[in-house]
Structures are given as structure tokens and as C-alpha cells.
């Protein structure tokens, strides 16, 4: 387990993330074996992972402005480098135990042209290079466990860790947007 404790939080953390991201990118070129780079973070008591290409950067959570009449997992909008991004709380969305503190946590900015959003996380996430053979894409597992929720991409099993690999764009689907309360059609 390589998840850093919040007490370790220091200003240099962002730099280290950047390094980690860089290193992870280098390994893509170096390794012959087919590997995926996964950003791993904690939500509730579980570990979740996102493919590295879905994440643009990690920042300290900025001040969030609440938007009225939106689902509770949309925590609001925030200014990240001059862009106004919607801040998504996946613990709320997945009905997990609340562990994220809005004022001391981190935010993963999602890499996308279509969506302007970011995800709240508790700690600085770390990257993991995972061989494709370690990812269990078996749909049977996924569908049995989660019914219609197809945002779960697969399950990564390394040593005794279990990481749930998710697709961020499937979480915020068109279907989901309709839940914006009383939204204009």
C-alpha cells in the first residue's frame, strides 16, 4: 500500500505528483509488456482507479461555489487556472462513507474537451502501472455486482489490493444530467 496519509501533506506534494505522472508516462515508452497507468485514490473504504489519460492534473481543492438545484454529488463550481469546473463528489455519487474534507483535500481535473469537471479526493493519489493481465474485465463480475452501472471498467487485483477501475465519462452521462433538478430540456 502506498497511499499517503493526510498528515504527510506538504506543499511539495503537487510536485511529487507531477513527477509521478511524468515517470508513469515514461514507463509507457520503456516497457514492452502492455501496461496501463492508473491513478489510484481512496473513496470511502475502497480504492478506485482512473486511467491516466482521463486526468489532466491534481490540485489542492479550491474554494467551491455551490450551484442551487443540482444533485448533491455536484458540489458546485470552482476556479481552477481560470477555468470554471464543476466539482464532483464520487463518494456521494456512489453512496460511500464520507471521508473527503472539502477544505483540505485534493481535486483531480478531468482531461476533456467536452466536460469541464473535476473530482474530489481525500489524499494525493498515486499512480500505478498495471499489466493488462492484472485487470479483470470479466463483465460477469461487474454486472452481477452493480446491475446497470456500467461505469465500472474492471477490477484490478495486485497482491492483496483490490482497485475498482472506473470510466469517469460513463459516470457523468447524458442520462445523469437529467437529474439536475428541474433542468431545462
Amino acid at each position, binding site marked *: 500500500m502506498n497511499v499517503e496519509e493526510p498528515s504527510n501533506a506538504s506543499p511539495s506534494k503537487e510536485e511529487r505528483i507531477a513527477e509521478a505522472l511524468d515517470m508513469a508516462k515514461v514507463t509507457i515508452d520503456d516497457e514492452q509488456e502492455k501496461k496501463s497507468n492508473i491513478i489510484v485514490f481512496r473513496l470511502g473504504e475502497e480504492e478506485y482507479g482512473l486511467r491516466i489519460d482521463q486526468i489532466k492534473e491534481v490540485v489542492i481543492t479550491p474554494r467551491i461555489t455551490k450551484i442551487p438545484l443540482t444533485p448533491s454529488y455536484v458540489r458546485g463550481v470552482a476556479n481552477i487556472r481560470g477555468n*470554471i469546473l464543476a466539482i464532483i463528489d464520487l463518494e456521494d455519487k456512489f453512496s460511500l462513507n464520507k471521508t473527503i474534507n472539502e477544505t483540505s483535500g485534493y481535486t483531480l481535473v478531468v482531461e476533456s474537451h467536452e466536460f469541464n*469537471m473535476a473530482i474530489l479526493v481525500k489524499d494525493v493519489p498515486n499512480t500505478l502501472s498495471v499489466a493488462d493481465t492484472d485487470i479483470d474485465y470479466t463483465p460477469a463480475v461487474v454486472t452481477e455486482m452493480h446491475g446497470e452501472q456500467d461505469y465500472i471498467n474492471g477490477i484490478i487485483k495486485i497482491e492483496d489490493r483490490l482497485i475498482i477501475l472506473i470510466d469517469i465519462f460513463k459516470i457523468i452521462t447524458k442520462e445523469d444530467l437529467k437529474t*439536475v433538478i428541474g433542468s431545462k430540456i
Partner: protein
Amino acid sequence: MKEEELKQIFLAEAQDSFEQLNRLFTQLEKNHADREATEAIFRIIHTLKGNAAAMGFEDVASVGHLLEDIFSEIRKGNITLTSMVFNDLFKAIDKLGEMIEGVKVDKKVPYKGMRAKLKVILRNLKGEIEYEHTQGGESSEKKDKEIEATLQKQLEEELTESQKETLASEQPVPIGIPLADEFMDEEEKKSKITFSDFVQVPVSKLDTLLNLVGELAIEKDRIIAQGASVGVTNEYTRLYRITSDLQYSVMGVRLVQVGALFHKFHRIVRDVASIENKKVNLDLQGTEIEIDRNVLQIISDSMIHLVRNAVSHGIEGPEERRKKGKKEQGTIQLRATSDKEYVIIEVNDDGYGIDANKIRKKVVEKNLATPEAIASLSDDDVVKFIFEPGFSSVDNVTSVSGRGVGMDVVKKAVDAVGGKINIKTVLGQGTTFSLSLPSSMAVKSALLFIINNTEYAIPLSFTEAVISVKKSSIHKVGSGLVTSHLDDTITVMFLRDIFDCKDNEELQNPQLLHRSFDQIEDPEAKINIVVVSVDNKMIGFVVDRLLQQKEIIEKPLGKPVENARFISGATILGNGNVCLVLDANDISEFLFKPTFATV
């Protein structure tokens, strides 16, 4: 002034076309059978000719016309290019470039020789297809001579008396031999490269630039505020001035004259009038007024709708007008005036005017309001029902207007740019639609206030006044609240009530609008109200605390929250926080929709 501007635009386009032609010709030179290049050349020449004709540059137009004919034949495969003909065409293009240059400096370039030559090429190529076939591609001296002979003959035939006169000094033109007069300093001209004084920039680049300047302005505000807190202010005056200048310059770049849109209506009015058998005269005023290009683009469809409506429903037929003692020819006037941050565009017709009683009938028929409610409204208020979705006052749908897209679409477009639409009508005398549009979409003045510890902004274009009243002077009426302001009774709502809703059902709760009001116990408690005017309805928004008035740059919210209700966008404040901008139209719509009708 206007003429000059049009000329500049024409020149910029023409020079651009000319450069493209040069490039395509070099391409064509390498491969005479290049279909793509031929097509492109034909298209460009066609446009150039059209533009020149519209501008009244007959010389460019006539040479362009001939070249177009030639390329039309080449395109159809009726003639094949030979290197000899090609060279002449290339020279013709050079000539065209020279003539465009001539337009720029107001100098007439002799072109009749070239024109005659092109005519001959056209004839020749068309008439001599057989001949070309038997002779093969190589040009021999014999062939040249033969062609020349045919040429001379054809030329004689083709020139009318008057043309002969003008050509007296130029003499019939043999192919391949340069004309002394016209081609004298050809070499010199060829080596000259001309640059247009205009740079075409994609709008997206301007948008990016404007965003950056917007952020700079915010940053400037932040730094100056910081400086003021420690007592340094003078240091920043230059920074302040430069950033403001920069901001206004960038905004200026995006401005276009409304004439760009107005002039398109000559054709539209003519077309619609001829379909409807009406006589309509179009009068344009204030075409030099400038407005943001994006604003103009967004409302252009609405303008077309308004003008079409004015012709087809506003203006009477000539017979009827005569009977009424009006001039047979109706007049539609488009007038732009500028008023501080706003541009007011009026579409006026001198036709029927709108009959409020007809509207009343229709409103009841369409179930948009109860007969009692509609009877109590003034004529002016009744007429506003034409902006309601699902209202179309014309029974017979014609090909011109009334195809389901109603005035509500027009209103939506105007709302979208933060403008207002008003209507004035006098039965029998005509109707005026007046659109008040922001001249620039980028920066707007807004009033900032706090609700539930969150900052919100509302554009000043909506706000009428800020008042403070005692709780005891707000009264419950039906499911809503009212108070009086300057003799008017206005609807009051605690914004907090709707912002705190968790779901749609809660939003429909009939007790909703009384919630916060009931929680206030002290009848003397002061309540801050921002009075806004939407569609000429006054609404008082109760806020927790008023902050300040500020220039903001509103950005739309992106996905996935682009549909958030009651919010039109957001802006970044000097402290880096995001501040939501209220959509007063949407709130008003919510308040006055059937479920919440306060009447």
C-alpha cells in the same frame, strides 16, 4: 464612409481570391487536367465576378465573367487546356490582379484588349474542338498561324461597331503576342507582391483573446485591491489604464457595423413582398452603429423573422392600403441607435398594427390564460402574449411566415444575449419591435449580493432599484408575496427559498415562497430587495446582503452543469472565487408559470 468600407472589404476579399487563383493556376500549370483546381478556379472567379458586379467595378466584372465562361467550359470538359491557351489565361489572371490593384488606387487599367482576347479564346476553344483533335496537342507554327487567321476573322465578326471604336487604338489581338500597351511593364509588375491591409481572423481566436483579457482584468482588480489594502494605489494607475485600454481594444476588434446585417434585408424584403404581392420599401437607419459580432450573429435569425413578419403580416396589400388612404407602398424601417452599453434595433412597419382584442380571443382559445384574467389586462400587456410559446396569431400559415417558429423564439434569442424586446403598436398605423441588445457580450455591469453565504451577481440591465423594507410591509397574496414600490405592487420572493430546494417536488410546493418569510419574526426587520424588471414585470428578489456593483465577464457554465436552473453563467471574482450569475428570465418564468401564478 460606408461605401469606402465596403470597398475595403471587397478589396481584401478580391486580393485574397487573386492569391488563391495564382496558387491554383500554378497547380494547373503542372497538370492541365487537374479537375479539382479547375473547379476551385471556377468557383473563385464566380464569386469575384459577383462581388465586383455588386460593387459596380464593371471592368473586373466583365473580365471575370469571360474567365468564368471559359472555365465553365473547361469544367464541363468541352475544352481541353493547351499550354498556349493556359499562358494566356495566366496573363488574364495577372491582368485581373492589376485591375484589382487599380480599384484600390482608383486608377483605370486598360483591359479591353484582354477582354477581346478572352472572347476569342472562348469562341475558338468552343468552335474548334474538332480542329484541336485533328491537330493534336503540340502547337506548331502552322497551327498558330491558322488559329491566328481564324481569330482575326472571328474577331472582326464579333466586334460590334462600338466595340471597334473603343478598340481603335488597340487593334485585334493575336494570341500569344503581348499587346504593347497593356503588357509593357509586365515583368516589373509580376515581381511585385501585394499584401492586403486586412487580416482575416477566425472568431474563435478572438474569443480566446477576449477570455484572456477578461482574466487579466480580474487579476488587475485583485492586485489593485491588494495594493489598496496596504496603501499603495498610485503605482497601479498605469497598470489600470493599460489593461482597460487593452480590454476595450480587444472588444473593439469584435465590433461590426449593423449594416452588415441590415443590407441583407433588401433582398429578403423584396422576395417576401413579391411572393405576397405587396409593395414594400425598406428604409435603413444607423447602419454605422457597431455591435459585437456574436450578438449580431445570434439575433440575425430573429431579425429575419421580424422583418418577414412585418412584410407578410404587418403591411397591407396595395389595394387595401389605398382604401385606407395610405401610400400604396408600405415602408419597413430598420433603425439602429446606440445608448451607452446598448444598441437598440427597431423594426418598424406602417401596416395593420396588432389588434389587442384578436389577441385576447386567441389567448383564451389557446388556453394561455383565463378569460377573466385576460380581460383585466391592458392592451399593451395583452399584446405581449405574442411572445408566449405556443402562440401564433395568424390563422393561415403561409410559405413566408407562421411555420411554427413564433415570436417566442425571437424572444429567446434576445434573452440569450442579455437583451430585451419591446413592442409598440397602434392599430391601423403600424407596429414597432424594439430590441435592446448589449453592444458587447464580454463585459457587463452587475450587482453582487450574498444569499446563504454565497455570492451571486445579477446584470444591471435587469435591475431597477435596490430597496429596503420592513417585514410588515410585505404581504402574503395567494401563494406568493407582494410589497409596494413607487406606487406599484411588485411580487417579492426570497431567492433562498428556491435555491434551497433539494428536488423538483420541493420546488413545486405551494408553500415554498412563504418559507423564509415565515421564519422572520420581528415585523420591524429590514429586508433587502433587489427590484428587477423582466418583460416589464417587476420582481423583488430578497437577498441577505448587498455587496457592490462591478464589471464582470460572464462565462457560460460548461458540461455537466450547463443546464443548471436559474443560472445563466458564472464569473471569476477578484479573489478567485466563482460567482454565479442569475438568469432573471428563468426565475420570472418559474414564478409566473401556471403552477405559481400569483394572480
